[in-house]
Each structure stands twice: as structure tokens, then as C-alpha cells.
């Protein structure tokens, strides 16, 4: 069942614009939202949530129009924005006592459970927590009001590899019941390979692809060959290309693969897809 659907979201700034951003996410899945710095990941998330006013487009959540039913939708969404942490001088207990009042379905038992599980001391001040602990605290808050959708902006940035791995395992556990979905943005492509079911890739404010991870990976191939094999026709098909004295390597859509006999074809990973896309064609 469809949980979230974003359709033709537009937002124009002086030097940047979101262009017809569309994607959707079903219940019980993890979607990775990837793109380089400044590609529009955070702006998309903020615009979806009406923190930034969209110039056009619709967002529906659990079948409701988000923009006209914002407060009800927010009851069911858990939010975390990157490295923004609030009230560094306050104790976790104090902040929780405030936050819980705003949610109809706040569950004290669940909250206590997450505190124990994440090894969080409610008497500690926010400023005394490590980045990983802060992220976990934000998650504990989001999960304790039984959010059906977690929207996490770069939850893994600033975490060491071990904490990151823990976090990704946790994400997978959270969706196991089939009720909760996670939309998280990241620049760390290995995170996506480990735990995302769907990938949405944004570049310069426009969505390049939004699809199942395997389908996404299958739809691109890396081609390698000597310099003289790089014909104009082939060059035109390449999404991105690197050349050196030994030859070239480039990214091509699997559907454009015909006619490239004699070239070395290999599978593409998310990182190389992103890099070739961002580099573009060498002229």
C-alpha cells in the first residue's frame, strides 16, 4: 500500500530550483535519497513537509493531502534533520517531557524500551552525547509516537563506520513489521547498498531515477575499452566518461548497450553511477 507520494513538486530560488520532483514509497520499505551536496535533497524534504513553501505540486501521505492536513500527517511522521540538534544545555528527560505532549499516540513504554536499547541516559544533557547517540535519541523520539514514516536527513553522516552499520541494521529491523517506512537522504552510497530497497537519485533539483535498487543497478553498465573504440556514436550514448592514455571507461544505460561488442562490460554500483552522472561526458 502506498504510504507517501510526492508529485511534481516545484520550488524556485534565485540560483536553484526543484524541478517536478516526483517519487513514491510503499509501506514497509526503505528508500535512500541520494545526490551530491546542493543537489536538493534537504530542500525536497523540507518542501514535502511544508517547512519550505512549494510553488507547485502535491504530497499525499496515507491517502491524505499533506498540505491541507499537515498536523494530522505530522502525528504519523518522525523527523530528523541532519546534524541539527536542539537545546544542547537541556537534559533528554526535559526535552522528552515536552515532545511527548504533542503526540496523541505517545507510548512511554516504547520510549523507555528505546532508551534502554540505545543505552541512552535520560539525565544526560544533549551536548554530552556523541553524534551517534544524538541520532539515536532523535530516533527514539520519532519511534515512540508510532510514526509510520521516518524522514531522516543524513542520519548517518558524522557517524563512524561501526555506528553507521548499527544504524542501518536498526533501520532494517524497524521496517520488519511492514507498517513503518523510512526515507533517508545520504551521500554515502555504501549505506544505500546495505539497506535501501528503493533509490531516488536527485541531481540539480531534478529526479534522475526513482526505482527499486536492483532495477536501478541493472539499468546501468560500465563500459571500458581502448581510446580508438570511443566513437562519436558511442560517446553520445555515454552518460559519463573518463579518458586516459590507456583508454576510456564510461557509464551507459543498459538499453543503450547494443552495438558495443568488443568492449568490456561490467556491472555498475551506486557510487560509480553517481560519479559518472555528475562528471558528464568528456568532450
Amino acid at each position: 500500500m502506498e504510504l507517501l507520494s510526492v508529485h511534481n513538486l516545484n520550488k524556485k530560488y534565485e540560483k536553484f530550483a526543484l524541478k517536478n520532483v516526483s517519487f513514491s514509497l510503499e509501506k514497509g520499505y526503505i528508500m535512500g535519497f541520494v545526490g551530491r551536496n546542493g543537489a536538493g535533497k534537504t530542500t525536497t524534504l523540507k518542501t514535502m513537509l511544508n517547512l519550505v513553501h512549494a510553488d507547485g505540486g502535491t504530497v499525499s501521505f496515507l491517502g491524505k493531502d499533506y498540505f491541507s492536513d499537515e498536523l494530522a500527517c505530522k502525528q504519523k511522521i518522525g523527523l530528523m534533520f541532519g546534524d541539527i540538534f536542539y537545546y544542547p544545555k537541556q537534559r533528554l528527560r526535559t526535552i522528552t517531557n515536552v515532545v511527548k505532549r504533542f503526540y496523541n499516540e505517545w507510548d512511554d513504554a516504547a520510549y523507555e524500551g528505546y532508551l534502554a536499547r540505545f543505552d541512552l541516559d535520560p539525565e544526560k544533557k544533549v551536548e554530552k552525547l556523541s553524534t551517534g547517540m544524538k541520532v539515536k535519541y532523535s530516533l527514539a523520539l520519532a519511534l515512540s509516537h508510532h510514526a509510520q514514516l521516518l524522514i531522516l536527513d543524513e542520519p548517518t553522516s558524522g557517524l563512524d563506520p561501526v555506528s553507521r552499520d548499527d544504524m542501518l541494521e536498526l533501520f532494517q529491523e524497524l521496517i520488519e513489521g511492514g507498517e513503518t517506512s523510512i526515507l533517508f537522504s545520504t551521500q554515502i552510497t555504501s549505506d544505500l547498498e546495505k539497506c535501501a530497497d528503493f533509490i531516488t537519485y536527485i541531481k540539480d533539483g531534478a529526479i534522475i531515477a526513482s526505482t527499486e535498487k536492483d532495477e536501478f543497478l541493472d539499468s546501468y553498465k560500465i563500459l571500458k575499452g581502448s581510446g580508438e573504440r570511443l566513437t562519436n556514436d558511442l560517446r553520445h550514448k555515454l552518460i559519463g566518461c573518463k579518458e586516459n592514455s590507456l583508454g576510456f571507461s564510461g557509464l551507459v544505460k543498459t538499453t543503450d548497450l547494443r552495438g558495443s561488442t568488443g568492449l568490456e562490460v561490467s556491472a555498475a554500483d551506486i557510487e560509480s553511477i553517481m560519479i559518472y552522472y555528475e562528471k558528464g561526458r568528456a568532450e
Partner: protein
Amino acid sequence: MKDLLYKEFRLCWHPNMFLFLLFGTFLLFPGWPFIITFFIPVNSLFFVDRANRDVFFAALLPVRKKDVVLAKVCLVAIIELLQIIVAVPFAIINNAVYLKGNMVGMNTNFAFFGLVLMMYAIFNLIFLPGFYKTAYKVGMPIILAICAAAVYVTAVDVAVVSVPVLRVKLDGLGASHMAGQLPVLLAGVVLFALLTLLAYRISARRFERLDL
């Protein structure tokens, strides 16, 4: 709304506030323009809020944006009124101890507190909508609001002390002057309420339109 006010007091009210409220005790010192005491403002509240990312925190909660602004405006008004309440007993003591009254500025009588309320009204009307234009820049709106309040305070203080009619009516101490001074206090209360409400309306409209 009740929950947002709870949030304001639990997360935004900081211990320094008690210190600022105690500036009311300065009314004990004789012979200086008392009205300056009330300049110790709610400014620090907004600087600390900014460091705490308070606006963004509130924006993520399932609440209406205009209620976020209303809760903040209520906290500001409460701090301002508390400052006056704390100052009143010290004004009474001052008047009882220094029988000659204040030689430099206005005496602390009913009219004085009415004029202080009007000063707050001006401050709120300039500062709050100025802040909610960006919900981030605190400095410039504060400077503008303090300048406006300072011009008002200076004008009022000078006028009351130097214009004979005003001096007789508004600077006098004791119950015999009450009839002339109570309307000024009442006008202060009304203006404070109206202009702060107007400040809230403009601020809420601006905050609603803002991209965070």
C-alpha cells in the same frame, strides 16, 4: 497552545531570566532615570533560542505555525509584566525612603508604570515582526526596537520633568495625584495589550510565509 506554553517555560526560559527580573531592585538607588531599568529586555531570550534552534524544533512539531508565534509572544509579554511586578515593591520602598523624589528622571508613580507599559508596547511592535521576518536575525530588529524605545523614553522623561503642566500632573507622588495618573496607567495597559496583539498578528503572518 497549552503544550506550546509548557515548551516555552521548560525549554526556552533560562536561569538568567531570574537575574534580569531582579533588575527591578535597581529602583532602590536614588537619583537616576529609573526608566532605564526596563531596558534590560527579553533580547537574551531570542539569542538563546537561536543557539537552541528553537524555531526549527517548534516547526517540526505537529502544531500550527501561528500558535508557535503566539506562545513566544505570550512568553515575552509574561517576562515584561513580571519585570514590572518585581519592580513595584522597590518603587514603593524608594518613594518611602527618598522623600525628595527622583531628581534626575521621573518619579516611580502610577503614571511611570503606565509609560513603561507603553514603552514595552513600542518595543514589541517593532521587535517581534522584525524578528519573524527571518525567524533567525535577532540583532537588527533588537537595535531598531531599542532605538525606538529609547527615543520614546527620553522624550517622555524630558517632557514630564521639564514641562510644568506634565510635571505637576504626572511626576507627583502620593495618593493625591492618583486621579491624574491612573488614566495614564490604564492607557498603558490598553496600549500594551493592543500593540502586542498587533505585533503577534503581523509576526504570525510573516512566520507563516517564511521558508525555514
